[in-house]
């Protein structure tokens, strides 16, 4: 582990140290300086992001002990993770403040979770991957419980925990089998395997399913709606955005580095999982009344698309699913942020009904929500369309036109529930109890960024090349 390599790890090191610092500061100064941990965390994430993008370079690819890979992909993903985390902190400051958990623990756990995700983007062997995964999910279980949310947080947390652990178990068992077939934990070791194919493939499938479980793909999706619904909006925002990128990252690493040679075997599995997710996610979302639950099912549908992209990635490249994942994260971020904008102390805008007639009270908010919903639905010119477009393009190029059509049909069915939100906001009269928009439930900076976030979905739709270029750079 040379000096240069350590500099490359600066983001992680800095983040870990700062997380500890936040914890300490929280213990000693928080009761005096109320927002110090918040500010420190913002600073941390900000600087980490800069460090992360600082590790980007056109030509460099550094490996630490075959287990930690620092390349453009990881640099860009870490940067995006930091942006998302920054947004989440900024958005949810007031929210968590009035719910009285603006404490060092929350930030420290979030930062550790971020650290875990950053590790995942760089992991190059199964051990690092496993540790990264655990490092990012364990704090999440805790954060769910931190916000005592309508008495269901404990249920959500325990469900998440049990199923997350089951996923970890599957993953681990799969890793053990792959190790059995290769004798090594390096991703790169897998490609040389000649005999022990069965064990290898069983391990591979189990690893894939473990990843699929963390992703929330059908049939491992059932935790997702419950967790989304049961968590406070700030936490849902956390769970609904960053992990997708981290898990995509690890899927990319595992599938391209470890199982790239045997792609033909797993492609079909991923394809089927993807299709099932698109189908079931979109259909199940229709019957939902709770908007977070609906977005959870919609997440399943989107995950399906990401998986479809991954399924054809060995031939077509990982650009499309990466693009989709990033875009999805930002769309979900905007959606949850806008839901958060409707909350007030003791009131959570949970039901779609709560959006009734929003256009009357807060036309801007309604408009931003409309943009977000159309973006999620994948209607051009919003950016969600290009995400789907790229995936479909790859699928068609891979001769999977039928699957593309099938997926699209269910995506269109999915349009229904997004549009229902728009309908409720625009076409219906306001409900009896007023919207909480007037309440200051988000800081000014947060509000501005939500505004930019949602409008960016439109702006990027007009110039989607920007993100595509970034994604292309990730693979350069």
């Amino acid at each position, binding site marked *: 582990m040379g000096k240069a390599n350590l500099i490359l790890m600066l983001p992680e090191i800095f983040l870990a140290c700062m997380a500890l610092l936040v914890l300490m500061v929280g213990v000693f100064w928080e009761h005096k300086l109320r927002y110090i941990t918040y500010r420190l965390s913002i600073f941390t994430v900000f600087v980490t992001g800069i460090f992360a993008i600082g590790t980007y370079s056109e030509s460099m690819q550094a490996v630490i002990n075959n287990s930690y890979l620092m390349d453009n992909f990881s640099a860009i993903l870490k940067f995006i993770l930091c942006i998302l985390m920054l947004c989440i902190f900024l958005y949810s400051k007031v929210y968590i403040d009035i719910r009285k958990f603006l404490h060092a623990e929350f930030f420290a756990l979030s930062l550790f979770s971020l650290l875990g995700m950053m590790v995942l983007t760089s992991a190059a062997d199964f051990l690092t991957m496993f540790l990264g995964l655990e490092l990012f999910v364990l704090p999440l279980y805790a954060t769910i419980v931190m916000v005592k949310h309508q008495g269901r947080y404990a249920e959500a947390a325990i469900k998440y925990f*049990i199923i997350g652990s089951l996923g970890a178990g599957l993953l681990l068992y799969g890793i053990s089998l792959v190790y059995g077939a290769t004798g090594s934990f390096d991703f790169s070791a897998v490609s040389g395997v000649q005999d022990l194919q069965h064990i290898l493939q*069983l391990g591979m499938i189990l690893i894939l399913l473990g990843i699929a479980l963390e992703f929330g793909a059908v049939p491992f999706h059932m*935790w997702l709606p*419950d967790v989304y619904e049961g968590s406070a909006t700030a936490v849902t925002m956390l769970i609904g955005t960053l992990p997708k990128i981290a898990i995509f990252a690890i899927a990319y690493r595992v599938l391209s580095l470890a199982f790239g040679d045997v792609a033909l*075997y797993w492609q079909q*599995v991923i394809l089927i999982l993807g299709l099932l997710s698109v189908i079931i996610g979109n*259909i199940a979302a*229709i019957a939902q009344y709770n908007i977070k639950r609906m977005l959870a099912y919609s997440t399943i549908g989107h995950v399906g698309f990401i998986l479809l992209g991954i399924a054809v990635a060995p031939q077509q490249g990982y650009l499309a699913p990466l693009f989709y994942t990033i875009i999805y994260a930002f769309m979900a971020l905007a959606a949850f942020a806008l839901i958060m904008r409707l909350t007030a102390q003791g009131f959570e805008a949970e039901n779609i009904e709560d959006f009734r007639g929003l256009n009357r009270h807060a036309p801007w908010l309604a408009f931003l929500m409309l943009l977000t919903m159309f973006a999620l639905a994948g209607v051009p010119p919003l950016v969600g369309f290009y995400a789907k477009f790229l995936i479909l393009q790859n699928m068609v190029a891979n001769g999977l036109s039928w699957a593309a059509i099938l997926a699209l049909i269910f995506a269109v*069915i999915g349009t229904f529930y997004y549009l229902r939100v728009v309908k409720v906001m625009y076409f219906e009269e306001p409900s009896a109890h007023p919207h909480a928009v007037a309440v200051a439930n988000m800081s000014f900076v947060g509000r501005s960024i939500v505004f930019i976030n949602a409008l960016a979905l439109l702006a990027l739709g007009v110039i989607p090349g920007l993100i595509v270029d970034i994604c292309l750079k990730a693979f350069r």
Partner: protein
Amino acid sequence: MYDIKPLAIIIIISPLLGAIMTGLFGKALGKRNSHLIACGLMTISFAASCYLLYGFLQGKYQPWNRYLYTWANSGGINIGVGFLLDNLSVLMVAVVNFVSLMVHVYSIGYMHDDPGYQRFFCYISLFTFAMLTLVMANNFMQLFFGWEGVGVLSYLLIGFWFDRPSATFANLKAFLVNRVGDVGFIVAIAAVLNYTGSLDYTSVFAQASNIAANSNAINLICIGLFIGAAAKSAQIPLHVWLPDSMEGPTPISALIHAATMVTAGVFMIARMSPLFEYSEMALTIILIIGALTTFMMGLVAIVQTDIKRIIAYSTLSQLGYMVVALGASAYAAGILHLVTHAFFKSILFLAAGSVIIALHHEQDIMQMGNLRRYMPITFAAMLIGILSMIGLPGMAGFYSKDLIIETVAMSKVPGATFAYYIVLFSVFITAIYSFRLLFLVFYTDARMSQDIQQHLHESPKVITIPLLLLSIPAIISGGILISQVVHGFFGSAIFVLPQHDVISEFAVHDFSGALNMFLHSFTSLPVYFALAGGVAAWLCYIKLPDMPNRIIKFNSRLYLLLIDKFGFDKFNAVVIVPIVNSIANICSNFGDKTCIDGVVVNGSARVVVKTSGLLRRLQSGYLYNYTFMMIAGLFVILLWFFVLRKFG
């Protein structure tokens, strides 16, 4: 050689201008200015057409065929707007303009108190424009334009009093039936284009013999055209609209439903003679249909009691005559009857209108009687009209009708013999219903209420003058035109195959001038048939007034059949309309609402929602269900991957 383009344009633009001015600025102009403008412009048009006709009669002008502008150029085919002025169209133009002018003038009086006065003038001017376009057209597109134009104006005019349900029923019916005919017409036009590659009369007719090589093609074209003509000229079974159209103002009945529009079909077939000549099948159909119309509608006329309806049925019957003539290839005879019919039937209608006004819109002849005492001029005009219609020798109608009967007798088209006997017998029927009308209205005892009787008086001059002016040609036009017509006045406009050329045959064998024809008539059957009819009517309605009732009792079934107008209307009302309606309802309710929307569209939505509900229930909230399903999913995937995929 004079250029007649300006004339043509004056003729056709004047009525249009009149229509536009009265239509758009009628309210501003006021009633008086409106009718002055309309009538003035009609007079200009009429004068120009007279000048033109005179020129053609003198041989000063040659047939003139020119395009004004390209209407559409598509698929390599040029469709233009232009005029064909030859003897046929010029004669028609003159007749149309004359009757139209008369009706314009008459309307000043007849429509005097109507709130839609300007609108009325707008319509009739526009109608004249459309009719002239039809007549002067030199291609099928324009023909169709005029054809539809007159149809629409007829629709608007029948429904002129749109607050009367009967009027709006009648006009819709008229338009619908005409449209049924148009289906045939448009198919025929499409066929013409398909087989000749052109819509221009000249080039189409030049290729007529080529098309004839394909008998299906020529038959399709001719029958299609005839279906169009049958609707417009109200031939069985598409005649049902004409009697109902009497709901329109009476001048309209005279102009459109007697003199001009209804004869458009006849004119069109005459114009298309180069095509029809090659289709014996079509000619036979025309002959038979025409003969049936003549006979059956004449019969119906006998039992009608509404004065306008009687005349309407008589129009049907007379149209039948014209059509029979066309079927016999005696196009010229048909046209001649068209001309004379235009005059005498306008008189009948206008006179009837005069009577109706005098009786305060009473139309039932059973409520009339003895009017000759009060309305002598009207009576005289009516008498002239009727005499002309039944073919009193020397009157205009005599020449045309006799010519038809003679030529039909000579024709060798299949069915001609049958047609001959029918038209001959129809002369008798014509006489009966005509005289019945005359007697019941102008003779016998006055049956109207005292109140009305006291105020009875002759109509004003604007009404009587047109009547008198129309009487002149109703008497003399036949005699003047017959020898021209027989001796090929229409020239190249009408084409007859030598083997069909009954007119020439007639000209060669039987014709030696109008006077001789008049003298000769007393030795021929038709006159005696007419006389017999007259006598019968006299017996029934003057001498023995209870005779009709006895006849009815004697054969009530026939009477009911006639009252039912042979059941055409009933058939439409009981069979066609309900069938269409129920099919429409099936399409709408079953097809669209139940099948497509209900099953497919909403059905799939329901399936999705049901599935969604099912998935909701699967998401039971119990952890062990979740894990069970996940592990089951895991198992299935493993099973599929390792066993079913037959891997390894």
